[in-house]
């Protein structure tokens, strides 16, 4: 048998002169690239995924992870992954899996949109010294409000407000299940969400009891596999989310490989240890908007009318689907663009299905406005939000808030190596191996995630200040304050954005 015909992507190299034989690289690599050879560290570079854990823990800067110069001849058409997947398929007959969002060079619309700023004729605002409102309420808003005079002569709200979820800034953490990520990673998200006054989302793996203290900052999810769903679970958080689809794998279901199902995860999900946890693409009780409505109200009945969110992948017909979802009674609609991350997805699906989130936000916001139902649900936009600028642009296009996952994981050490599906994450994030998850101290890493959220908060305030706006509500759907560069007329038309210079 010859070795795999797909040459390794990276060369893990150790400078033998600098190396002091401390063996930390051996301990740290989750992929078992290194082993001890008696007098030096041996390297099996074919397993290296360039997660850079070893590099960070080498005290002597002896490690370098290089792109393998012999991988395949550079070719702008036949890329490395393309050829490698062919070889893999020839060797196994299987579907190549991948993790994280698509890295293919599709146009990035966020990078072709620029935000306006005030000059001379309209004053900007100094956010450091003037009040700046980022607080956001998620949920249905009444079409109009009525007031009445109270006994004390003061005006008060007469209209009964539907339930609202208050978040301190228009940012939440995207759903990531216990199983796809470690419990410690979920705890980092929960601690940070509570501290920052925002939300985390359990994903579809149930709610581990360790997260109960954070329940006021948690959305619980119900997906086709119904893992861990019972009345306590439905009532545990501030809202319930029905997961229909995910941006990284629209139209296909969840798949948690058996490697990531040890006893604890199996117990939370109520399935056998080591089996593959499968959430098929269709929820077999939902074949229509009417069926969705039935499940939304089954959940509302079971939770005394908590807000229900419906998460879908951004697909071609997203606007019409979103309209149906809103009419079915959803309080929140969660749109996940094709760049969205995943713990495991077939690369062929991740890289070729769905549409960018920027288009989806604009299309859905337009459609709901045209139909006069934009107030009926909040829009959360996700799927590749990399910075507060992306967040501001998403909000200007029409989102009420954005959700981040990959960006949050980078604060825990993730280098976006894309190998989450193996269950070997050296950073202890997308793994259930106890020796790896123990590395992720929830308190310490929550601190870093809180820093990130606060930094984005400041940046968002700076952006609003530059726009001369003192509340994020005034940015929402305010596409007049965006301009496109290098975009064709039709794209500009879909986005509802003028070209720069107009």
């Amino acid at each position: 048998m010859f070795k795999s015909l797909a040459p390794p992507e990276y060369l893990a190299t150790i400078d033998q002169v600098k190396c002091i034989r401390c063996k930390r690289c051996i301990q740290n690599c989750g992929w078992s690239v290194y082993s001890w050879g008696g007098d030096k560290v041996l390297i099996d570079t074919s397993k290296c995924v360039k997660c850079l854990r070893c590099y960070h823990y080498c005290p002597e800067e002896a490690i370098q992870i290089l792109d393998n110069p012999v991988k395949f001849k550079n070719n702008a058409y036949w890329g490395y992954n393309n050829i490698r997947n062919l070889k893999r398929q020839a060797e196994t007959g299987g579907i190549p899996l991948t993790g994280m969002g698509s890295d293919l060079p599709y146009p990035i619309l966020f990078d072709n949109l620029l935000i306006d700023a005030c000059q001379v004729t309209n004053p900007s605002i100094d956010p450091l010294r003037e009040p700046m409102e980022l607080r956001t309420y998620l949920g249905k808003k009444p079409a109009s409000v009525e007031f009445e005079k109270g006994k004390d002569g003061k005006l008060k709200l007469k209209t009964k407000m539907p339930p609202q979820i208050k978040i301190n800034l228009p940012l939440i953490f995207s759903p990531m299940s216990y199983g796809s990520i470690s419990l410690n990673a979920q705890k980092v998200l929960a601690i940070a969400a509570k501290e920052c006054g925002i939300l985390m989302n359990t994903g579809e793996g149930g709610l581990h009891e360790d997260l109960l203290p954070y329940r006021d900052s948690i959305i619980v999810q119900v997906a086709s596999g119904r893992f861990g769903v019972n009345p306590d679970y439905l009532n545990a958080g501030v809202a319930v989310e029905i997961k229909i689809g995910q941006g990284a794998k629209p139209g296909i279901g969840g798949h948690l490989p058996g490697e990531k199902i040890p006893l604890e995860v199996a117990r939370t999900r109520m399935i056998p240890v080591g089996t593959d946890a499968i959430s098929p693409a269709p929820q077999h009780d939902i074949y229509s908007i009417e069926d969705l409505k039935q499940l939304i109200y089954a959940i509302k009945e079971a939770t005394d009318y908590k807000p229900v969110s419906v998460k879908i992948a951004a697909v071609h017909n997203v606007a019409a689907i979103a309209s149906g979802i809103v009419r079915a009674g959803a309080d929140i609609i969660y749109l996940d663009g094709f760049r969205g991350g995943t713990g495991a997805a077939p690369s062929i699906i991740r890289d070729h299905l769905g549409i960018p989130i920027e288009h989806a936000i604009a299309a859905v916001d337009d459609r709901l406005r045209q139909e006069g139902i934009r107030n009926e649900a909040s829009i959360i936009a996700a799927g590749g939000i990399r910075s507060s600028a992306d967040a501001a642009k998403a909000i200007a296009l029409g989102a009420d808030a954005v959700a981040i996952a990959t960006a949050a994981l980078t604060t825990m050490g993730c280098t976006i190596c894309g190998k989450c599906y193996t269950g070997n994450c050296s950073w202890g994030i997308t793994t259930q191996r106890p020796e790896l998850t123990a590395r992720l101290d929830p308190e310490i890493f929550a601190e870093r995630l809180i820093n990130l959220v606060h930094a984005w908060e400041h940046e968002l305030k700076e952006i609003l200040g530059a726009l001369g706006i003192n509340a994020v509500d005034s940015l929402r759907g305010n596409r007049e304050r965006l301009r496109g560069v290098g975009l064709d007329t039709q794209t500009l038309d879909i986005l509802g954005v003028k070209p720069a210079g107009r």
Partner: protein
Amino acid sequence: MLQIDAKGMYYRELNQKVRSAIANGEKEITLKNVNGQYYIGDGLRGNAAITVEGVPGNDLAAFMDGPTLTIKSNAQDNIANTMNAGKIVIHGNAGDVLGYGMRGGTLHILGDVGYRVGIHMKGLKRQSPTIIVGGTAGDFFGEYMAGGILILLGLNEKDPRPIVGDYLGTGMHGGAIYIRGEVDKNLCGAEVGILEPDEDDLKTLRQYLGDYCKDFKLDIEDIMKKGFKKLLPISLRPYGNLYAY
């Protein structure tokens, strides 16, 4: 014992009444003139006994966690959706997608059931959901089953239809299905193995069927006269080889 006349009542009001009665400690409730109201018993906890007269609507006992529901007639779709505990006894036929993601408790149906019954059922040691169907079942019986027990009896010997439809146990990776009589291998999903029940299985069957027979005043010996087949998943990872890493 409380009676609620559901005639012309919207489901929200009806269920609100039931919930507040139970909150006030009511243990026995009869719902009269029920006519398709959704979500009866949805998310209910405790140990009340509720009798339904008339045909209840979809999502009966969704997420239910404890009570006992007795339905004197037929019932519709999505019964026992993600139910956690409790019991439902249906003295008639029931529709599609029963016991979806069911995690515990018991569903007894005297008559026939539709498609996708017992799909995604879960189980964990002592918490094992059970569905027993007296008549026949449609396609996708026990699809994606991960735990619990499904028993299909086909008691109406004059019924010329096959006892179960196609795609039986497709994607099954846990739990067990017992079918009275013979099972056509061609109907089964690729993940399913057909076995002869052993002593322990027969004991299990007698235990579950004893309770079932009591609910419908049937004779367990009549039922046990005919043999059973047991269906188990042949692999914990039916799709383990589908992917390249």
